[in-house]
């Protein structure tokens, strides 16, 4: 690992810090140039969570918060793979997700949207990728919800994802969208991403992972920052 250097964020696909159509960036985005530094031990490592005790239902949001029945809405399975830019799978890395329920309402205390909560749905989950970097969640398709950014602003359906990857340079928080959503073209958070990156945030409907009589399948793959050593570690 001595000569390994991780690639920087690729500005061709990542959103800029300041994106004025997304109004909260105006007072919250750093304005001064980032200081480029050499990666040292802290940057080339990160938390691994090998000792975190995952619950058996942590990856199944349709079951992990059931109180008196099943959550309402369209059951989906979200499946994909985590690799880096070199094409190497990222095994045993932790993924966390959170989302609104089918009606577009978050359990969060700050969410005041006048849509019903679902007593059987929290909307949070996590899982670890397998040895080939694959992951899978069961959940309910999230609803769209309004927000205050501009007149008649609605967020497209999305699931929030948080990934750790190989080290802290790999840290990624993002959102997965759904194909054909008419709200995407109006959403300043999605449109904050340069055109080249946008389709990378839209999952694909996949009949081959759709589970008969159970759940529609969506595929969503992740590519984390790669590095200068194309030889896979033994």
């Amino acid at each position, binding site marked *: 690992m001595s000569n390994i250097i991780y690639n920087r964020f690729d500005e*061709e696909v990542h959103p800029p810090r300041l994106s004025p159509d997304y109004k909260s960036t105006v007072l919250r985005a750093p304005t001064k140039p980032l200081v480029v530094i050499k990666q040292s031990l802290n940057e080339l490592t990160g938390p691994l969570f090998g000792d975190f005790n995952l619950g058996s239902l942590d990856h199944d949001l349709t079951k992990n918060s059931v109180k008196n029945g099943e959550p309402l809405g369209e059951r989906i399975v979200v499946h994909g793979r985590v690799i880096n830019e070199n094409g190497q799978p990222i095994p045993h890395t932790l993924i966390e997700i959170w989302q609104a329920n089918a009606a577009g309402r978050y359990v969060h205390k700050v969410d005041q949207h006048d849509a019903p909560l679902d007593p059987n749905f929290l909307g949070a989950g996590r899982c670890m990728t397998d040895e080939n970097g694959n992951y899978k969640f069961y959940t309910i398709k999230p609803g769209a919800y309004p927000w205050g950014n501009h007149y008649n602003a609605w967020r497209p359906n999305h699931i929030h994802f948080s990934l750790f990857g190989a080290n*802290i340079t790999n840290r990624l928080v993002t959102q997965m969208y759904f194909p054909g959503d008419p709200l995407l073209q109006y959403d300043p958070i999605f449109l904050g991403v340069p*055109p080249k990156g946008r389709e*990378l945030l839209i999952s694909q409907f996949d009949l081959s992972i759709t589970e008969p009589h159970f759940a529609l399948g969506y595929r969503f793959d992740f590519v984390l920052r790669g590095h200068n050593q194309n030889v896979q570690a033994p």
Partner: protein
Amino acid sequence: MLENTSNESPHRGLGGYQTPSQTVGPYFAYGLSSEQYLYDFKQLAGNQMVNPIDEKEAITITGKVFDGEGVVIPDAMIEVWHNDGEKQLFGRFGTGTDAQNRFIFHTVKPTSVNGQAPYLSIIVFMRGQLIHSYTRLYFADEAELNSKDEVLNVVPEQRRSTLIAAKTANGYHFDIWMQGENETVFFDI
């Protein structure tokens, strides 16, 4: 529908393009810091990076995050990574539960690695950031090592103080300014 902006599918290295970042948004708490915010879901990590009962050297690090108008941000999430070769510690805390909207971490001070000044890696997430920000926390009582540190010396001198946590009775205090005259130094790592 979206315009098709390019005919070729976006591929770069063998693995393709990096997946773009999106904001953590305002509603991360029940997923990422659930116990801190009193939701019924086990959390991955909180602000007890060490158990203070076991650690005689335990310190408390506190701070606030300020926006461009100097207003305290109540919905940021801070992650701390400590790896000094001896200990690997991770902490995560949202600024929405403390009465003053501070972040608070209970941990130990890292040791110096290869003569570098000891530091903690800090990752800042919040609504209004489409991509997270990286900074570092250095310690005011390490003036000697700080003055010789390779990374601190890359930072313009007048901005260096934004990276140095002040000593308090039981630890350190470190405010993060997203903008303004005292804008914290953020790194491209």
